[in-house]
C-alpha cells in the first residue's frame, strides 16, 4: 500500500512561509513537502494546515538570524524552483545554528543549492534591469513586457521606481500574467485580469525613436569583429523576444 504524503500548506506569501517554517521547527517536524495554496492535491496527499501568524514569523526570523540570511531566503522564495520551500526550510534550520557562517558552509548540500538559486534570481533580475524595453503609449505611459523565469517583477519594480521616478510606467510579466503599475509614488503588483490594458497604441514619435534605436544598434557593431557566439553567451535567445533591436535578427533566423 502506498503511504500518505503529508503536505504542509502556506498562503503563497513570504511571511506565511516563514511562519510555517518557524512552527515546523518548533514542533520538531521534518516536512517532506511544503506547498502553497495553489497546489492541487492528489489522492495520496494529506493536507495539513497549521494556524499561521505571519507577523510572528517575520519577527522570529529577524530576531534569530541576520539580514543577509533573510535576503537570501527571500530571493529563493522568488525563484521558480519546485523544491524551493524545502530548500528554504533546511537553509533556515541550519542558519539558526550557524548564523552568517552558513555562507561558507557550501559543504552542506542545502547551502550549495540555496546559494545557487538565490544567485540565479539576483542574476536574472540584474539582466532584466538592462534588457527590459519600454514603449511610450499615446497617454504617455511607459509600457514593457518581460518573460522572466523567476518572479523578479518586484525586484525590477524597485529598480525602475528609483530610475524612472517621474514617469508613469507599467511592466507586465507575461509568464505569470501579473503587472506592476507605478503612479509616480508607489508601485502596485496586481493580477493581469484585474486591470485591462487594451490601449497599447503608441505615438508616431515613439515609432521614430524606435527606428533610431534599431539603426543605432545595427551601426554600433563592428563588422570585422562579428561574433555571434559571444553575443549569444551574454544575451541568450530567450531574451530576444521582447527586445526591440533583436526583431530583425529573429525574423532572419525564422526564414
Amino acid at each position, binding site marked *: 500500500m502506498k503511504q500518505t504524503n503529508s503536505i504542509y500548506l502556506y498562503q503563497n506569501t513570504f511571511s506565511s512561509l516563514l511562519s510555517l517554517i518557524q512552527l515546523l521547527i518548533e514542533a520538531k517536524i521534518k516536512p517532506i513537502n511544503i506547498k502553497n495554496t495553489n497546489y492541487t492535491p492528489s489522492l495520496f496527499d494529506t493536507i495539513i494546515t497549521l494556524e499561521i501568524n505571519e507577523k510572528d514569523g517575520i519577527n522570529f526570523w529577524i530576531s534569530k538570524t541576520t539580514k543577509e540570511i533573510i535576503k537570501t531566503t527571500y530571493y529563493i522564495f522568488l525563484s521558480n524552483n519546485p523544491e524551493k520551500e524545502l530548500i528554504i526550510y533546511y537553509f533556515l534550520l541550519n542558519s539558526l545554528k550557524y548564523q552568517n557562517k552558513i555562507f561558507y558552509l557550501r559543504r552542506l548540500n542545502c547551502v550549495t543549492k540555496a546559494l545557487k538559486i538565490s544567485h540565479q534570481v539576483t542574476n536574472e533580475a540584474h539582466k532584466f534591469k*538592462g534588457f527590459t524595453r519600454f514603449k511610450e503609449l499615446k497617454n504617455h505611459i511607459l509600457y514593457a513586457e518581460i518573460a522572466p523565469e523567476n518572479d523578479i517583477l518586484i525586484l525590477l519594480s524597485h529598480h525602475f521606481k528609483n530610475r524612472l521616478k517621474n514617469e508613469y510606467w507599467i511592466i507586465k510579466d507575461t509568464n505569470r500574467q501579473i503587472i506592476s503599475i507605478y503612479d509616480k509614488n508607489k508601485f502596485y503588483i496586481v493580477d493581469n485580469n484585474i486591470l485591462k490594458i487594451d490601449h497599447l497604441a503608441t505615438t508616431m514619435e515613439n515609432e521614430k525613436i524606435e527606428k533610431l534605436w534599431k539603426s543605432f544598434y545595427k551601426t554600433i557593431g563592428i563588422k570585422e569583429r562579428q561574433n555571434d557566439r559571444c553575443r549569444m553567451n551574454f544575451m541568450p535567445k530567450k531574451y530576444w523576444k521582447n527586445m526591440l533591436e533583436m526583431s530583425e535578427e529573429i525574423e532572419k533566423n525564422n526564414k
Partner: protein
Amino acid sequence: MNLEEKLKILADSAKYDASCSSSGSTRKSKNGIGNTAYAGICHSFASDGRCISLLKILLTNCCIFDCKYCLNRKSNTIQRAIFTPEEIAKITINFYKRNYIEGLFLSSGILKNPDYTMNLLIKTIELLRHKYRFGGYIHAKAIPGASETSLKKLGSLVDRLSANIELPTESSLKLLAPNKEISKVDNIMQYIKKNHQKNFVPAGQSTQMIIGATKETDKDIIGKSESLYHHYQLKRVFYSAYIPVNQDKLLPRLKIPPLKRENRLYQADWLLRYYGFTTQDLLDDKNPNFNLLLDPKADYAVRHINEFPKEINTCSYKDLLKIPGIGIKSAKRIASSRKLFTLQFKDLKNMGVVLKRAKYFITCNHKYFINPEYFEKKFIESNLILEDKEKLTQTKKQLSFFE
C-alpha cells in the same frame, strides 16, 4: 540630413572606442530622470558581442587633425556631420526613458580648436543635466589641449572623463598621430587625478590603446598600463585591436584584427588590477609577448612550476590568487571557509573553483589530485592547451545545436 542619418554617421565614427562600462558612480535621481548603478548595467550586446551600455556617439566627426589610423582624419573624404546639443539631449532622454541605455558616451573630433570643441561638449551636457535634469551615466572624452577651466567645468558634469593615449610610446604617436602630443594627454590625466572627488568625475578616468597598429610588444603595452594605473589611478585601460579603416604606407596591412592578442591583454590587465601580478611576473625580455595558446595566468604557473603545488588549506590569500582556475570570489570563499574546517577536493567544486584547471597546481590536505608522478611541466602544459581546444569545439557545437 535627417536625424537618423546623422546618428548613423556619428555612431559609426564612435564605435571604435572600446570603452563601454557604466560603473563606478552612485548618482541618485532627484527631481528629474535617471540614476546610476554602481556595478553598471549592460542593456544589449552588439553583433560583435560587445556590451552596449551607453549611447556611444561623437558630437562631430569633423576634425582638424590627421591621425593616420582614424576614420575621421582630415584627409579622408567621408560624409561629415555635427549634432546640435538639443539633438543629443533629445535622443539620450528618449533612449533612456525606454531603457535602451544607461546613459551617454560623448566624444568628438576637434572642431576649430580644443576649447571650442570642449565648450560644445559642455553645452550639450549642461543641457542634459540642467534642462532635462538627467541623472543617468555620462562618460565624456576630454579633448587633448583643453584648458583647465573647461576640464573643470566638464568634469563637474559627468561621471567619467577620460582621454585616450591611443599608442603606448611617444615614437609611435609621432609616427601615426603627428598632431598629437603625449604631454597633452598626460596633462589631462594629471588634472583629473588631482581633482578627482565626489563631485568631480566620480567614476574616475579610463583610457584606450590601439593594439597592433605599431610594433610595440605586449610587454611595452602592459608595462604602459601598469604605469598608468600607478601614476593616474586609472579605473580601466581598454585595448582595441587595430582595424584597418585607412590605407597608408605607415600602417600595417592586416586582414583580420588581432583579437586573440587583445583578449590576452585584457586577461593580463585583470591580473595586474586584481590578482597582484606585475608586468615582470608575466613577461620578460625573452618572452615579450603573451603565449597565444595559454592564458597569462596558466602560462605564469607553468613557467614558475617550482612555486607549485600550493596547499589550499594553508597557503596565503595572495598565493591562492596565483592558482589557475581560482578567481577572486572562490579565493575569498576558500579563505573564509578554511577557518571553519579543512577543505577537501569536493568542497572546492562548490566554491566555484575550476578544478579542471586548478587540479595540477594544488594539494588539498597534502594530497595531489592526480598521480604525483605527473607533476611535471611538459605534461601539465600540454594538458591545459588541449583542454582549451576541446572547450572551444564543444561550445561551438552546442551553439550550432541551438541555432
